[in-house]
């Protein structure tokens, strides 16, 4: 992160490596690190997931919880749909500079990014389905993310974890009925069914995008930058792509230098090209994670337990 200062010789080594397409840990420009994914980590939430990007138990680590709440409609709010509220917080245990007010800036940047990606129609979620009774009551989805460790590529891990959490989210069923009061006026009333079995997933969650961050280093760019690579990044661009291969959101960050327009369009094209692979990888990991879903392994701990996913 920002506090990491590299010597000129190290910077030169990284930049030249990237320009040759051979990175410090042997990856090519578009190779990504290992990802570990688990869902159902928080029992009180409607859906939750933890995602780690990095190998051998070290890496960027993010925990996301989704909590649904019923809100009463107030004048001025959208009449026929629910809302999504995002909040990202970087834990001071992740990096020393997050202590005190140090994390404020990055919290805002990441919250804005997440809001840009999943906060509206572009996320693929059907917000109309979150409406319970028009102009009366609707669902609010609170997406709270906690950054537990930072080793480069926070944005990507954040979107991965959020997508998994939203896919795992189950909303209780709501029964709406028409009641006629004493004066003979009919009005709608609703009841939240309190039954763990009687729940349903979010409509459109399968259309949620995944994001890839491209870091410009020297004259080339890389995806999934490590901590050291981020320290020499001149500019970065996060591109979110939906499973339908549409670009849903773009956010720039860490601009020491601007992007050349040609590089910008090249990056968006690359994002679309690699997205297919990303979704296949996500689906495989998510299916694996859903099998466990919050259960702890029965196997006894061994010396290399910390290598296990969480």
């Amino acid at each position, binding site marked *: 992160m920002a506090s990491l*200062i*590299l*010597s*000129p*010789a*190290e910077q*030169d*080594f990284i930049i*030249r*490596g990237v320009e*040759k397409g*051979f*990175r*410090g*840990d*042997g*990856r*090519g420009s578009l*190779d990504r690190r*290992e990802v570990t994914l688990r869902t159902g980590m928080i029992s009180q939430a409607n859906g939750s997931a933890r995602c780690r990007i990095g*190998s*051998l*138990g*070290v890496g960027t680590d993010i925990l996301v919880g989704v909590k649904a709440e019923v809100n009463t409609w107030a004048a001025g709010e959208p009449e026929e749909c629910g809302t999504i509220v995002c909040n990202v917080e970087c834990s001071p245990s992740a990096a020393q500079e997050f202590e005190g007010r140090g994390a404020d800036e990055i919290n805002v940047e990441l919250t804005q990014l997440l809001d840009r990606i999943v906060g509206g129609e572009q996320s693929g979620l059907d917000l109309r389905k979150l409406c319970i009774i028009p102009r009366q009551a609707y669902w609010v989805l609170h997406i709270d993310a906690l950054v537990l460790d930072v080793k480069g590529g926070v944005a990507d891990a954040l979107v991965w974890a959020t997508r998994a959490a939203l896919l795992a989210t189950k909303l209780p069923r709501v029964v709406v009925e028409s009641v006629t009061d004493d004066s003979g006026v009919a009005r709608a009333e609703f009841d939240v069914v309190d039954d763990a079995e009687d729940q349903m997933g979010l409509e459109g969650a399968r259309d949620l995008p995944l994001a890839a961050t491209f870091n410009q280093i020297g004259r080339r760019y890389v995806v999934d930058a490590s901590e*050291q690579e981020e320290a020499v990044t001149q500019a970065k661009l996060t591109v979110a792509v939906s499973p339908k291969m549409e670009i849903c959101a773009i956010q720039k960050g860490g601009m020491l230098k601007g992007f050349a327009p040609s590089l910008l369009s090249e990056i968006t094209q690359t994002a679309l090209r690699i997205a297919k692979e990303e979704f296949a990888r996500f689906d495989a990991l998510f299916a694996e994670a859903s099998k466990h879903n919050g259960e702890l392994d029965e196997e006894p701990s061994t*010396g*290399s337990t910390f*290598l296990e996913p969480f």
Partner: protein
Amino acid sequence: MDVDMESQDTRDIASRIVTPGSVITNDTAFMRGHGTFAERTTIYSSVAGAVERINKLVSVRPLKQRYSGEIGDIIVGRITEVASKRWRVDVNSRQDGILLLSSINLPGGIQRRKSESDELQMRTFFAEGDLVFAEVQSYFADGALSLHTRSLQYGKLRNGTFVTVFPQLVPRSRSHFHTLPCGVDIVLGVNGYIWVSKHVPASKVEENSELIYSDKNEFISDDERETIARIANCIHLLNRLYVKITDTSIIFAYEASLTHAVKDLLTREIAIDLAHNVKTRLEQQS
């Protein structure tokens, strides 16, 4: 009879693994050492580690700890601040080490007192972020380490990449600078900071002493880059799987890794397999 009791105690107390708060002994005959605390007559562990006993002194050696320096240690540090007549150096310890302007060699090997003009151009020797290869010279009163680079082999590090490991995995040995047969130089800092770089013959620096403070890398070919990355990944996996990091273990890991692509070395199965391989070979050797 007394002797028997003694050996019983030894077996009970020593070579046990404890976690913070575990009771080590209720016996008042023992004295508490590092990594323990006493409450009334009981001695508890304050860290996670192995219990050790020297006569009546009970201490716990932690499994994980920060580097605590000793005079003569060879370390790698990163400059964090340029202060008056000194540099502050991050040495992976509880506090920053200090490198005095008077403890460095001037380019050209001139032997003289450092003047005010040297003080003004301290950043041309070492600037913030630079990595230094140094030796622990002495302690300051507050326990901070005083370093020196008064030898041609010490100085600024270039042509390679930096790896951090647990300091307790790097044993103190006769030599901490190794040229591996694969053409890579490694500096194993006892403080857990390791530098992996392209091999540059020592004579080259001796001929041109300006190179001691150079920031420019030499030309590094694709093959050399790959070998450096492979060694760095090997060190990383040895560290994660808690294997001693010495020139021998690194060479073993390197040889065993040759059948895999560099980027695959850090995947779980391959890493465990390689570390196991290195452990068996190390056991065979000893």
